[in-house]
């Protein structure tokens, strides 16, 4: 598989491991590297690279899982929509098991709700055409990688005069979350592994103010074992050489400096940026994408009215803190007792690569 296999080459990977080990021979301070992308979390665990690296490198998983940072109110709204007899919810698989205040889409699917798991938002348009008497609501959850796809889908719906397709927009932006984490100072981050495919869309520029203001090294990293190790090596080099921190791009084969301008223009055409609530981080300024008035015909919040239950946070659930790296899973009173992969209470336990689920697997206490 071109552009994949060569980045999984064991001897190349181990060369970089050697380089990291030799750089850190004399450097024994803890180095905390945070990634803010669910696929990075997954790739790091899948490749097993942390088991090859020196123990003083700590891997922190930040708020990079879009379903994990989606607040309960959004999920409760989606659940309420799914219960309406004339509505079909379409969603990516990731969203299905995440618990809201009292239920989840998985449970609704088994009860009265109509929920369909799809691979691409475009499938929602086909479902809309095949079900003219139903309202099709796509759950727009995802960062900058996914937002342009949803924007394009809305534009296609407009071109094709599809009037029973709606989006419940929950899209969020990564740089504001990175800024909020650094501003909170609750956690020491020595370097950021910047999300590869978000960066394909946004390019390098949005990270410059973060590097400048907080003096923190940032490297845009791909997803194969070679990429992850090379990205970590580049961060370690910046940290140990104590030079002026900078933004570097390890994933140049995919990420252009200016990003994908066409995708960015589509986001700009359909969405506007507003303050947005994040689980665990509160309301972050200018961090969410909301459908512009021009395209309000496709905005679920404007067209689908129904009672949504009062939002409840589960007392004792500290997913928000775990998402930001300020607490470890085993510091949560519910972890491993009331909250397990079979009966998850918070989103961190739901996905098999969510922080709590990953810890549970390793039985860390």
């Amino acid at each position, binding site marked *: 598989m071109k*552009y994949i296999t060569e980045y999984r080459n064991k001897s190349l990977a181990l060369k970089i491991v050697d380089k990291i080990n030799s750089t850190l021979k004399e450097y024994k301070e803890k180095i905390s590297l945070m990634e803010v992308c669910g*696929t990075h979390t997954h790739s790091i665990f899948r490749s097993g690279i942390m088991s090859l690296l020196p123990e003083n490198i700590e891997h922190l998983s930040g708020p990079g899982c879009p379903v994990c940072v989606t607040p309960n109110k959004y999920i409760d709204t989606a659940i309420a929509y799914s219960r309406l007899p004339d509505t079909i919810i379409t969603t990516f698989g990731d969203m299905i098991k995440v618990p809201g205040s009292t239920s989840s889409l998985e449970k609704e699917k088994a009860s009265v709700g109509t929920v369909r798991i799809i691979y691409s938002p475009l499938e929602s348009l086909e479902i809309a055409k095949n079900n003219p008497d139903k309202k099709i609501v796509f759950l727009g959850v995802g960062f900058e990688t996914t937002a342009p796809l949803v924007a394009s889908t809305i534009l296609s719906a407009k071109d094709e005069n599809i009037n029973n397709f709606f989006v419940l927009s929950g899209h969020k932006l990564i740089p504001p979350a990175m800024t909020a984490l650094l501003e909170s100072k609750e956690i020491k981050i020595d370097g950021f592994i910047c999300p590869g495919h978000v960066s394909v869309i946004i390019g390098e520029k949005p990270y410059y103010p973060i590097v400048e203001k907080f003096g923190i090294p940032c490297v845009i990293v791909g997803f194969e074992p070679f990429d992850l190790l090379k990205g970590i090596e580049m961060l370690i080099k910046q940290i140990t050489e104590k030079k002026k921190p900078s933004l570097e791009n390890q994933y140049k084969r995919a990420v252009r400096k200016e990003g994908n301008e066409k995708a960015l223009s589509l986001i700009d055409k359909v969405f506007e940026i507003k303050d947005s609530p994040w689980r665990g981080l509160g309301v972050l300024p200018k961090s969410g994408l909301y459908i512009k008035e021009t395209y309000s015909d496709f905005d679920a919040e404007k067209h689908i009215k129904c009672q949504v239950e009062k939002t409840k946070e589960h007392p004792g659930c500290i997913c928000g803190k775990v998402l930001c790296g300020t607490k470890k899973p085993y510091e949560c009173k519910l972890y491993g007792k009331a909250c397990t992969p079979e009966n998850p209470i918070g989103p961190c336990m739901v996905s098999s690569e969510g922080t709590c689920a990953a810890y549970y697997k390793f039985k860390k206490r």
Partner: protein
Amino acid sequence: MCLAIPMKLIKIEGNKGIVALSGVKKEISLNLLKEVEIGDYLIIHAGFAIEKLNEEEANKTLAIWKEIADIQKK
């Protein structure tokens, strides 16, 4: 949300394309890209191509490490 994979563009039909990887083919949207050619490798995310892979950069990324690996083998 980042799950995306490089696939080769084998057919263009208006603003849609067919991409392939090891015999797996899928129709995808080319709406997010300006110019593409048959034979380009595209990053595919949820039914859309989000970028074209830069072969020169790809080769550069690996080149120096391959050199080191080759020197070590000798």
